[in-house]
């Protein structure tokens, strides 16, 4: 048993050390790298705590995409200002003490609370697993996400659309660095990798019904494919024709979710209460639309602004 406990202790130590490095490292680039490493170790922890769905999502979105966003922001930041010497954060020393005193107070209170949680742990495991066969899927997490608490997921897909609207309202997308690395090797990889990502995304969506996976993990892979397209320098080309398509893809997820919810409601059932026999089909329909919207949204977040079309501002989004 000691090997497993050793592994857990190592995992815990790694988490703490990486988090400490990510917050206090003087060199910003190393802080970002520590954060991405933290995301990967966290994915490992989710797997260790029997949450494979979360491990997939954490690795793809938590460390992968967030890391890509941060590195892109770091690249734009160092382009703009000459790389100022990365001394310790000015004035941090002054604010250091109150910050860490607050941290110790929060840690003390929180650990006291979580350690004194009641021993027969309360939870909804039985209720969730009891009505699993009525939910249309056998993976309990997907059942909770798309059936028991589907209203939360609907609002969450609303948050995704909101994020894109917010980013588009803030600025026109900055041109990616000229001369971004594009050699034959990279194009060869992309030509092979992007179709594979799309297929795997669809695969994850499909197995989400009975094994770890689902719309979010699949969408994260599609998002990754979009990031590769943007980074690989594959020219995005004049967007005029395609902006309407992109825009439709972005709001399709939320629209299908609400449509299915309202559709299910008309025959005097509650909102989003699927008829049991067609539950799996409806969930699949919702997840497919969500998959596309999530992938495009994560791509747009990486793109960092609204795609300006060639023509005048009026016809652009």
């Amino acid at each position: 048993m000691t090997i497993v406990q050793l592994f857990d202790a190592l995992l815990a130590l790694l988490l703490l050390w990486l988090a400490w490095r990510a917050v206090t490292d003087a060199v910003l680039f190393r802080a970002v790298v520590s954060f991405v490493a933290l995301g990967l170790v966290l994915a490992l922890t989710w797997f260790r705590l029997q949450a494979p769905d979360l491990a997939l999502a954490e690795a793809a979105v938590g460390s992968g995409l967030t890391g890509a966003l941060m590195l892109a922001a770091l690249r734009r930041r160092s382009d703009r200002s000459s790389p100022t010497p990365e001394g310790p954060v000015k004035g941090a020393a002054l604010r250091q003490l109150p910050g860490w005193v607050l941290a110790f107070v929060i840690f003390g209170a929180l650990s006291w609370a979580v350690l004194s949680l009641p021993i027969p742990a309360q939870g909804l495991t039985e209720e969730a697993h009891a009505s699993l066969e009525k939910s249309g899927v056998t993976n309990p997490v997907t059942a909770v996400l798309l059936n028991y608490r589907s209203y939360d997921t609907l609002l969450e897909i609303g948050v995704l659309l909101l994020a894109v609207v917010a980013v588009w309202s803030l600025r026109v997308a900055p041109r990616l660095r000229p001369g971004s690395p594009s050699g034959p090797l990279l194009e060869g990889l992309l030509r092979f990798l992007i179709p594979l990502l799309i297929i795997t995304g669809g695969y994850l969506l499909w197995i989400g019904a009975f094994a770890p996976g689902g719309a979010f993990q699949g969408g994260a892979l599609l998002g990754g494919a979009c990031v590769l397209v943007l980074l690989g320098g594959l020219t995005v080309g004049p967007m005029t024709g395609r902006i309407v398509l992109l825009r439709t893809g972005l709001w399709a997820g939320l629209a299908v979710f609400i449509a299915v919810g309202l559709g299910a409601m008309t025959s005097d059932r509650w909102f989003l209460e699927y008829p049991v026999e067609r539950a799996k089909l409806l969930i699949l329909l919702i997840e497919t639309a969500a998959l596309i919207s999530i992938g495009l949204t994560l791509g747009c977040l990486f793109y960092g602004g609204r795609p300006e079309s060639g023509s005048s501002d009026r016809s652009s989004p």
Partner: protein
Amino acid sequence: MNGAPLELFLLVGAALFACGAAGVFRDAEPLRRVIAVNIMGSGVFLLLVAIAARGGGDRPDPVPHAMVLTGIVVAVCATGVALVLADLSGGEEGDDDDGERS
């Protein structure tokens, strides 16, 4: 349970949350504060998953897992918006073309 020491992970979750909170209040650099907020989020998610593992015997509780999945997606949305804002606040090249001073 597969013997994972849940108390350890609960404490690590609390530590991550506290470390992130200190980072958010302590720092001025926007990018560091984005990292700190994400670490706070990871701390809360670790708490939730450890709580989920506490109850389930060999079947963990799916409800906190769904909450964490929602949290991860919301966190990446917030990070995306925060990084664009950090970009705009850092350099002046944001497209604030002739928006009248309001």
